[in-house]
């Protein structure tokens, strides 16, 4: 279903509009100068702060904004639809004080130590994917490489059968790209996924092992195990938050290197630059945009926000704000001062950021080790996703070994 075309993004914006999907940056530049908070009556009323300061103010304010739902759509979830205050997918859909508990529970699993321990398996996975490409000199770096890495990693973390990786990818599409499908259809689409995860949880309950699923089943809060819907919700969250996002980040970085030979050469010659370059990939191609709902009528950033209005947190737009980043619209591979918001800000800071960075680094290192030369076969054939996660979905490249 397509929405009517947008005539003015300041007063009628729509993040699913083809112009926004294709190249949002000039739109945001324009909004930053004119508004800087855009409004639309679409989706029942929604705001879009385009500056670093505006995005930060909303992200840091859990008194006026709720995370009850973070994916902007046409409906509003009922107050009591998800089991409040847990929310559908804790901690991302939880507000304080419950959020604090739900987040503390999962943070140790994503801390630097456990992430480091996972690195050899990620490297092995990347090498196997490259091996599978055989002698091909032309392939799709999004659908034949980047796309497989995050599901492989999450499946290993959760302790689900590795053979099921592909299924997860399809399932993410159901969740993220089916937002415009009618509710009955969505429930139907969800049923097999729900059954699968429930079966995995039962299997782990019967046979505990050393993985995230068993950890969630074993952990106690105030002497009580987690509610079944909490365990289920957190697993769903890790699947959703960990896959499309990271796939997009890896894909965008490969897109950049395939279309900017100078940066590719620079990285090839100076591999130590990688961590700094990764922060610039994250700033410049920040894949994730998140939503909030206004809790009650409030004047905020000079705007009359009403209860249940949406606010879309454009972390990617904040990352292009010239008030914070000199030469904001230029990709500077060795940018040292880079206070970007790709992983959000405040209490919901991406719990998987250590993991995501590691996946990006290993995926790029292994790709460049195998193919020091990469270029786009057909820039016009590249397509970008629509919605709140942005990344290349078709990325045909031509490669050459050393």
């Amino acid at each position: 279903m397509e929405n009517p075309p947008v005539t003015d993004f300041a007063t009628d914006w729509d993040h699913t509009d083809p112009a926004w999907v294709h190249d949002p940056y000039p739109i945001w530049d324009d909004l930053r100068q004119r508004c800087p908070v855009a409004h639309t009556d679409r989706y029942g009323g929604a705001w879009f702060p385009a500056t670093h300061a505006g995005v930060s103010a909303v992200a840091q304010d859990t008194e006026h904004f709720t995370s009850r739902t973070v994916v902007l759509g046409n409906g509003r979830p009922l107050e009591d639809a998800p089991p409040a205050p847990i929310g559908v997918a804790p901690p991302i859909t939880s507000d304080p004080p419950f959020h604090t508990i739900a987040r503390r529970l999962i943070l140790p699993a994503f801390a630097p130590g456990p992430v480091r321990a996972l690195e050899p398996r990620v490297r092995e996975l990347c090498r196997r994917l490259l091996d599978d490409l055989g002698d091909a000199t032309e392939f799709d770096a999004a659908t034949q490489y980047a796309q497989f890495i995050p599901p492989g990693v999450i499946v290993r973390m959760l302790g689900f059968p590795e053979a099921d990786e592909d299924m997860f990818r399809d399932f993410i599409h159901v969740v993220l790209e089916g937002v415009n499908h009618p509710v009955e259809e969505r429930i139907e689409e969800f049923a097999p996924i729900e059954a699968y995860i429930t079966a995995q949880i039962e299997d782990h309950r019967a046979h505990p092992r050393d993985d995230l699923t068993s950890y969630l089943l074993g952990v106690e809060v105030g002497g009580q195990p987690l509610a079944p819907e909490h365990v289920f919700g957190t697993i769903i969250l890790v699947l959703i938050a960990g896959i499309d996002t990271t796939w997009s980040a890896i894909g965008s970085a490969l897109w950049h290197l395939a279309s900017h030979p100078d940066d590719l050469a620079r990285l090839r010659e100076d591999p130590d630059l990688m961590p700094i370059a990764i922060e610039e990939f994250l700033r410049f191609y920040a894949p994730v945009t998140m939503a909030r709902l206004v809790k009650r009528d409030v004047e905020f950033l000079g705007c009359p926000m009403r209860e249940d209005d949406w606010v879309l947190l454009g972390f990617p737009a904040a990352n292009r704000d010239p008030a914070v980043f000199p030469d904001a619209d230029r990709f500077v591979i060795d940018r040292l001062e880079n206070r970007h918001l790709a992983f959000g800000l405040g209490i919901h800071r991406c719990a998987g950021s250590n993991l995501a960075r590691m996946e990006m680094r290993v995926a790029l290192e292994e790709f460049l080790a195998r193919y020091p030369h990469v270029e786009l076969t057909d820039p016009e054939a590249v397509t970008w996703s629509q919605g709140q996660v942005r990344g290349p979905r078709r990325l045909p490249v031509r490669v050459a070994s050393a």
Partner: protein
Amino acid sequence: MKVTIDAARCQGHGRCFNLAPDVFGFDELGNGVVLVASPPDDRAERLARLAQVNCPEHAIDIEE
């Protein structure tokens, strides 16, 4: 130089301990902690300052 982290602000972005691992470490949640409050040499001081200007939460304080 004296380096401190405001634990109430830190959200565990991890920029400090990645940029300046000799000065910053992390706790079991992945939040930043100061390992060496007075960095011993110019290089460590420079990296501590770099960590400060990259902290998204403005949680690092440096007294010169």
